[in-house]
């Protein structure tokens, strides 16, 4: 196996000298792993598609609302939060908060994350606040997804 040394140019706060990490050539090591994973994923997709084919319900009828109706699973947390938040904040209506918080504010925070989190360390032990906030956000999304399923 051909092992080579590559240089890591990242400057970290504690050591400013270059860190050496063991590197493997992209070809064939990295590519081989990728191909194995790709075969596995492609096979799984074909298996899932054969066992659970995509559904097709009755044609759209604007005059009959089916029960229950759910949005796509990745939007359920927005839907769940909208159902969850029922309090008006002063002049701001509950519904406005219910859609703005999980869409505009949440995505705004995601976009700005690297500019909000100025801690230069990528060591998980030195990022306790960021990790805690991440876990809270994750549990929150799971909770509101659950809330959206229960309170449709």
């Amino acid at each position, binding site marked *: 196996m051909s092992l080579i040394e*590559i240089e890591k140019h990242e400057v970290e706060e504690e050591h400013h000298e270059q860190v050496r990490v063991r590197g493997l050539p*992209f070809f064939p090591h990295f590519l081989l792993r*990728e191909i194995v994973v790709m075969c596995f994923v492609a096979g799984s*997709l*074909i298996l899932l598609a054969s066992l659970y084919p*995509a559904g097709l319900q009755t044609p759209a009828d604007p005059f009959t609302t089916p029960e229950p109706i759910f949005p796509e699973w990745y939007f359920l947390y927005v839907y769940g939060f909208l159902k969850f938040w029922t309090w008006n904040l002063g002049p701001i209506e509950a519904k406005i908060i219910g859609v703005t918080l999980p869409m505009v504010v949440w995505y705004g925070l995601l976009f700005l994350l690297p500019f909000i989190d100025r801690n230069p360390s990528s060591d998980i032990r030195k990022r306790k606040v960021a990790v805690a906030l991440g876990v809270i956000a*994750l549990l929150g999304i799971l909770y509101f997804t659950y809330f959206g399923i229960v309170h449709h």
Partner: protein
Amino acid sequence: MSILDKIYKWLDDRFKLRDLLPPIVKHPAPEYAVTNPLYCLGGIAFLCFLILVGTGIFLAMYYKPTPLEAYKSVENIMTAVPMGSLVRSIHHWAANTMIAAVMLHMMRIYFMGAYKKPRELNWVVGVTLLLITTTFGFSGYLLPWDQLSFWATKIGTGIAGSLPIIGQYISLLLMGGSDIGNETMTRFFAIHVLILPATIAILLGLHFAMIRIQGISGRL
């Protein structure tokens, strides 16, 4: 040394095969990125994207984007077109897997702190890619024009429409009127097969170019 190695070496001695390989092939990947399966998630999302392009082109050949024809054409794909049911089901599963993979990929980047200097812009491009991927899902959901499509889109456009200030414009832009109908269908189709694929191709190019320039971020 195996026989294949010997053949390769014999050819390499004479033709300098190694110099012909594109630079990416010779570029070293850090060992942790090869051995840790968490580093596969972005690649899985990209594979799903490629499968979606392939199956999507197939579906576009049989699909008719009008409220009158859409449902019948999807029914035709599911029952009469050879392999149609399989291709549509793969499209469906690859779409869901892609969204899940993008989200998990983002979680890995977050918890490993890989978005930090100098990779801030790549994170921003990544979040945009997540937005585009979910918009792909949202626009594709309407196209079969069945009860689920119609009413899920009703909820979705309703939620987008109740955003303050811009909501009503987004809603009008998406639906092309005050309710889901002809205009909505053709708009969603154009968004799904023209606007979003072009946008995602450009952003994926940027995403990969930045990784290529900056390398994969450090260890845990």
